[in-house]
C-alpha cells in the first residue's frame, strides 16, 4: 500500500516524488525531469557559447595586429625606426622615402587641441545639466547633446568643408592672426589661407567629442551623493564652490575617463578630419597650415598606393593603433594613481 509512492520517491530526486503524490496530474511521467534535462543541456550550450565568444574576442585583436604587422613588414624592414621621425613622404623620385612624423604630429596636435577646446565646453555643459539646470530643462537638453553623437562623421565633414572652412578663412583665421600672429603657432604662411587647416580639423574634432565627454561626465556628476554637496554648502560654499568641492572632485576619475574616451575618438576619427585638415604632407608649423593626420593620410592614399607605399600606409595604421593603446595604458596608470590618493587603504 505504501510501496508505490515510496519507491520512486526514495530512488530519485524530490521532484518525481511530489509528482507521484499528486494524483490529479494527467501526465504519467515525472513532468520535471525532461525540463531539467533540457535546462542542463542549455546550460552547457550557454557555457560553450560564452567560452567561444570570449576566445574570439581575444583572438580577433591578436590576429588583427599580426596581419597588419605582416602587411607593414616591408616598410618596417626597409626604413626601420627612422620611419617614425622621417618627415618626407615621396613615392615619385627613384629612392622612395616614407616618414611618419608629420602625420604623427598632425594626429597628436589635432587631438590635443580638440581636447583643449572640447573638455571645458563639455564639462561646463555637464555641470550645467547635472547641477544647475531646472528639472524640466534637463532631459530635453541632454537628449539634444546626445543626438550629436548620432551624427555620422561624414556629415560633420560636409558641414566642416562647406561651412566651417570658408568661415575660418574669412573670419576666424584673420582674427586670430591679427591678435595672436606674434606667436609662431598662429603665423600665416603662403598656402595657409585656404581655411582647411590643423585648427579647422581640431575644431570639428572638438565638436565631435562633445557628446561623449559631456554625457559620460554628466553621469559621473549625477552619481555624486547629495551629502557631498551639502558638506560643501554647510561650510558656507556658494553654488559654484559647492560644485567644485563636491561633485567635481568626487567625480574627477569619471571626468578623466570621459576625456580619455574623447581623446580616443579624436585620434581615430578619419572622415571629418580628412575633409577639413587640408591634406598637406608638409609639416604644419602654424595651426593655420594645412596638415595631415595618420588616419587622413591613410584615407587619402590607400586607393592608389602600391608596393612599398602600401606597406608604409599599413605601418601608419599600426602606429595609430599603438598610439591609441599607449593613451589607454597611460590613462589607466594615471587613473590608478588618482584613485590611490583618493581611496587609499579602503
Amino acid at each position: 500500500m505504501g510501496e508505490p509512492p515510496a519507491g520512486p520517491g526514495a530512488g530519485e530526486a524530490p521532484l518525481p516524488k511530489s509528482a507521484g503524490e499528486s494524483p490529479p496530474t494527467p501526465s504519467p511521467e515525472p513532468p520535471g525531469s525532461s525540463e531539467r534535462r533540457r535546462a542542463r543541456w542549455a546550460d552547457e550550450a550557454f557555457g560553450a557559447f560564452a567560452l567561444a565568444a570570449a576566445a574570439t574576442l581575444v583572438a580577433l585583436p591578436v590576429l588583427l595586429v599580426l596581419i597588419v604587422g605582416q602587411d607593414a613588414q616591408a616598410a618596417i624592414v626597409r626604413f626601420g625606426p627612422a620611419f617614425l621621425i622621417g618627415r618626407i613622404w615621396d613615392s615619385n623620385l627613384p629612392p622612395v622615402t616614407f616618414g611618419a612624423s608629420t602625420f604623427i604630429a598632425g594626429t597628436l596636435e589635432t587631438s590635443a587641441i580638440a581636447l583643449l577646446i572640447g573638455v571645458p565646453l563639455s564639462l561646463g555643459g555637464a555641470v550645467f545639466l547635472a547641477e544647475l539646470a531646472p528639472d524640466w530643462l534637463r532631459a530635453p537638453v541632454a537628449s539634444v547633446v546626445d543626438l550629436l553623437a548620432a551624427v555620422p562623421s561624414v556629415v560633420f565633414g560636409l558641414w566642416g568643408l562647406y561651412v566651417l572652412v570658408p568661415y575660418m578663412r574669412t573670419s576666424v583665421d584673420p582674427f586670430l592672426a591679427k591678435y595672436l600672429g606674434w606667436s609662431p603657432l598662429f603665423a600665416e604662411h603662403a598656402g595657409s589661407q585656404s581655411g582647411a587647416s590643423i585648427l579647422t580639423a581640431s575644431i570639428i574634432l572638438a565638436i565631435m567629442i562633445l557628446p561623449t565627454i559631456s554625457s559620460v561626465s554628466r553621469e559621473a556628476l549625477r552619481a555624486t551623493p547629495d551629502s557631498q554637496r551639502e558638506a560643501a554648502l554647510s561650510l558656507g560654499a556658494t553654488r559654484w564652490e559647492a560644485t567644485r568641492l563636491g561633485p567635481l572632485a568626487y567625480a574627477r576619475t569619471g571626468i578623466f575617463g570621459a576625456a580619455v574616451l574623447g581623446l580616443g575618438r579624436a585620434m581615430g576619427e578619419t572622415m571629418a578630419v580628412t575633409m577639413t585638415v587640408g591634406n598637406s604632407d608638409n609639416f604644419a608649423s602654424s595651426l593655420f597650415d594645412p596638415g595631415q593626420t595618420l588616419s587622413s593620410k591613410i584615407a587619402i592614399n590607400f586607393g592608389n598606393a602600391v608596393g612599398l607605399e602600401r606597406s608604409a600606409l599599413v605601418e601608419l595604421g599600426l602606429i595609430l593603433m599603438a598610439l591609441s593603446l599607449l593613451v589607454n595604458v597611460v590613462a589607466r596608470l594615471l587613473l590608478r594613481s588618482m584613485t590611490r590618493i583618493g581611496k587609499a587603504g579602503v
Partner: protein
Amino acid sequence: MVEHLNAWYGKTHAIQDISLTFPDKQATAIIGPSGCGKSTFIRCLNRIHETQPKARAEGRVLLDGNDVYQEDPTEIRRKIGMVFQRPNVFPTMSIYGNVAAGLKLHGGYSHDEIDTLVIESLKKSALWDEVKEKLDQSALQLSGGQQQRLCIARALAVQPEVLLMDEPASALDPISTARIEDLIFDLKHQVPVIIVTHNMQQAARVADRTAFLYLGKLVEIAPTRDLFERPAEKLTESYITGRFG
C-alpha cells in the same frame, strides 16, 4: 531663537509654526518619531533645507538678533555649522585638506592661521592624537567614527557660532557613538549644539534641554530631566514610554 517657522517639501507642510529658543552654552536635543520633521527643522536653521528642489521655508530664525532669512545664506551657513547623519568627508582630500576646506573657501587666512585652526579643530573634535602622524593621508583611510569626528572638526574650523548635528551617531557603532556623545558634552561649552536624535537615551545623556516634535509641530520643550521624568504633555509621555513611534 526661532519664531513661527514653517517649511514645506512640495505640498507637504513639514514644519508647522514652530517657535523656540536655544540658550548659549547648552546642548539642545530634538527628538521625535521618524518623519516628524526634526531633520527638516534643523536644516531650516542654516538654510540648507531650501537647497533641495521644491523645498521652501518661512518664518524668522534669529542669530544675534539678526534674521537668518534676511542675510546671505553662504554667510549664515558658515556661522551655523552642520554635521550630517553619515560622515561626508571629501574623498579626494587629505585629512588636513578636509579640515582646511572651509577656511580656504572663505580666504583671508594665512598659512600659519590655517595650520593653527586645523590643529585646534582636530583637538576639539578629539581626533588629533589619532591623525597627527598622517594629516596628508586620504580622509577615507579613517574609520566611520573617525570620519564623523573629522566632519565635526571640519565644521568647527570655520569657527561657527552654532553647531547643528543631524543624528550624528546614527550610522556609527556603540563605541564611536559614545565618543561622539562625550565630544558633544565638551563642545557645548564653546558653541551651542543643537542635535537631532531618534535615540532618547542619547538625548538624555548629552542634552540640557530637549524638544519633542510630532507631525511637524513642537509638542513640548523642557529641561531634559523634566521632559523625561515629568512630561507636561500626554503625547510626550506616551512617546518616551514607548507607546508609539
